[in-house]
């Protein structure tokens, strides 16, 4: 545990029972269900899960920028003790978005306006939120560009003139212009090749140290997450199935899904063949009854198919959503 987490008791972000629904032509699907999480100042939380687990939906919900066909609800959503669930849209926009929470979106290549110059897009939050004069905003942005190793001439480029890696850096720089407290990174490197991925991860770690940022790091790659995160939350089919400190989750995964996820990771050092998780991710429209993982779980027993487990506290570890742990408690 980091020192910071110990002496500041108040969490930066606290979310209780977040739920995101999408209306589709075939019915309503719940992409995020009863997700609770908390992030301490300066701490970083990794959200890990396979594709379609609902990670991005959760991230978008935190910024309240879900698509039109989505609705969200929660019992609580607080940022620095400020209720950000019920804040009127306009206040939320002016005081929270990008200033307190900013985000690097998964679709890096589509995140930039194709007809506006990079510089204008990156300085825009400074000018709109803080009224910074243009030239000062530019100086600030150029400083950030240096921080993420972007050449200064990028400022006058259009998005289509940049490579994917450069765009990703632009987005990271843009997410930092207002010095937010919380940075959400949604698969910030998945569109990039391995070398650039490593470069960007290094830079992110640097930034985290220098700026004392809290980070929510969303990825399907548990190894990547463990590289930068203090805490991990494993998501499966819209639910968090296991949370805990990175080290204990890596060393002693409890939930069957987490175990399989770790086993599926290629571990170059140990020369073990990665194990694929059998079966398909569940359908959101017609989710399986009981534990959502039960059709793929090797430990499945009767109760799993009828009742859904709740998160169970495991001392010195975290929480696990699995009937196997009910008796142990």
């Amino acid at each position, binding site marked *: 545990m980091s020192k910071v987490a110990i002496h500041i008791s108040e969490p930066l972000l606290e979310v209780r029972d977040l739920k995101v629904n999408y*209306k*589709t*032509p075939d019915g309503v699907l719940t992409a995020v269900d009863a997700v609770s999480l908390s992030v301490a100042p300066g701490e970083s939380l990794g959200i890990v899960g396979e594709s379609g687990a609902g990670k991005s939906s959760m991230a978008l919900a935190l910024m309240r920028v879900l698509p039109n*066909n989505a609705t969200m609800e929660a019992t609580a959503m607080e940022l620095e003790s400020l209720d950000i669930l019920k804040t009127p849209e306009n206040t939320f926009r002016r005081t929270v978005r990008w200033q307190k929470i900013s985000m690097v979106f998964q679709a890096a290549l589509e995140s930039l306006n194709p007809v506006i110059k990079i510089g204008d897009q990156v300085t825009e939050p400074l000018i709109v939120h803080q009224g910074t004069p243009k030239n000062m905003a530019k100086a600030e942005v150029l400083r950030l560009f240096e921080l993420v190793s972007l050449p200064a001439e990028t400022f006058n480029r259009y998005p289509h003139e940049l490579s994917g890696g450069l765009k990703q850096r632009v987005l990271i720089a843009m997410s930092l212009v207002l010095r937010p407290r919380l940075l959400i990174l949604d698969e910030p490197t998945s569109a990039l090749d391995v070398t650039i991925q490593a470069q960007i991860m290094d830079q992110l770690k640097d930034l985290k140290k220098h700026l004392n940022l809290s980070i929510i790091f969303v990825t399907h790659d548990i190894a990547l997450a463990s590289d930068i995160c203090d805490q991990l939350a494993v998501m499966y089919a819209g639910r968090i199935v296991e949370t805990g400190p990175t080290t204990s989750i890596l060393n002693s995964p409890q939930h069957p899904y987490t175990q399989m996820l770790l086993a599926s990771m290629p571990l170059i050092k140990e020369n073990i063949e990665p194990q694929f998780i059998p079966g398909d991710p569940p359908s959101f429209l017609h989710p399986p009854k009981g534990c959502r993982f039960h059709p793929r779980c090797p430990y499945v027993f009767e109760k799993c198919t009828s009742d859904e487990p709740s998160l169970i506290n495991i001392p010195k570890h975290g929480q696990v959503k699995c009937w196997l742990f009910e008796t142990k408690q």
Partner: protein
Amino acid sequence: MDTKDILTIMLRSGSGKAGVALLLGIVIISVTVVFLFPMDFGSKRWNNPAAWADNPKSVPPFWVGLFMGNNSIAHKVFEVSPQETQANLVQNYSFHYEYNSGKSPTFTTLSFTDVTFHNRPPLLELNVVRPDGREIVLYQQVLRGARPGESSPYKRFEETPLRVFLTSETETLISLVSFLEAEFDVKTNPEALSGLVEQVVFGQPSHQGNLEFVPLNGQYDFQILSYMNHPSDSVGSLKLVLGGNSFGFMGTDSAGRDLALGLLFGFPIALIIGLTTSVFATVIGSTLGIISGFKGNKTDIIIQRFSDIWSNVPLLPILIFLIFILGQKLWIVVIIMILFGWPGLTIVVRSMVLQIRTGQLVESTKALGASNSRIMFRHILFQIAPFVLAQMIFFTPAAILAEAGLSFLGLGDPSIPTWGQILESGFRTGAVYLGYWWWIMPPGVLIVITAMAFVLIALALEPAINPKLRVEK
């Protein structure tokens, strides 16, 4: 996305249902018309003034007459075709006409066809006995005898009938003058009676000695007599027409043409124009687009340059010019529209092909060893098919509207009546200013409905092609 999905998406929407229903109706009418109408309807019937001579000119549909009450006078045609052999030398046909209106018939004509005689020509006579018992001889005429060099039997009026327009026939006017003098003590002359024939025949002076007439309702007995001089003389069909002030389902134009027939004939023509043009234009356009996108290199550059220039030629001015110079033929119009209709599609299809080509499907097929042309036409066509189909449907009304516009400028094909031409003749002869709405409205409405059918279907297809537009219910 396969064809079934597209159909489902299309039929799920209201506009899709409406479009398909409309189109179905249009197709059914067109097929019926094709079976029932002669192929040369345009030249032999529609544009042949003789075919419409006996119809009232520029009158509204009969159902308008139903609302005109006592001011309505129905169109009446009496016709007989006598048997070949007649025992009598005098043939006698009579018609009963129940006259019951505040208006007199708008005109009266009498026609004979197929007169055969051997030595002296027959005498033809038409008379009428009115409800008040008075009798008028309306027409009495000995046909012209043998021409020099002609030999018996003499045949007359085989092709074109002898058509007597009693409304302005001098014989009739003279006969009416004496009738008025004898029966009502009205002294007048033929000139004064011109234009009053029907009022005299079907009425009586409002008061003594006056040239104003009030209708005399009741039963009129018309009698047509032909006096022959030889046992094998004969007169073919006879026709007496009492003109009305409304006619048929859709009224008539200024030439007396039954607009209902012209409008019906317009259905298959519109479909043929629209579909031929759009099918050929889309086939050419997408084929060239696929070739261009697939072959790349020089072929691509040439096709693209050409399409770019070609697609920029403004259609209507060129259509006007070419049709004016080359002649007013529908097939030329269609060919020109095809010729100028394809390039837009080629450009779009090419860019779609380029996108697909870099995709995996074709790559994997290539790996399996399929031949080049098969890859081209199976896989790429399969993927762009929905889009091309939508374009075809969208292009159909454009072609129909373009032809209609051209016809409206007076460049329609005279041998094939279209809705545009009906409107044009109405516009040119001032039907708009005279308020002949039955002439102006229906062809326009039909053009709009037909175009709508296709537009609605295209509209319903759009979400299938562009999923971003799919609307959640």
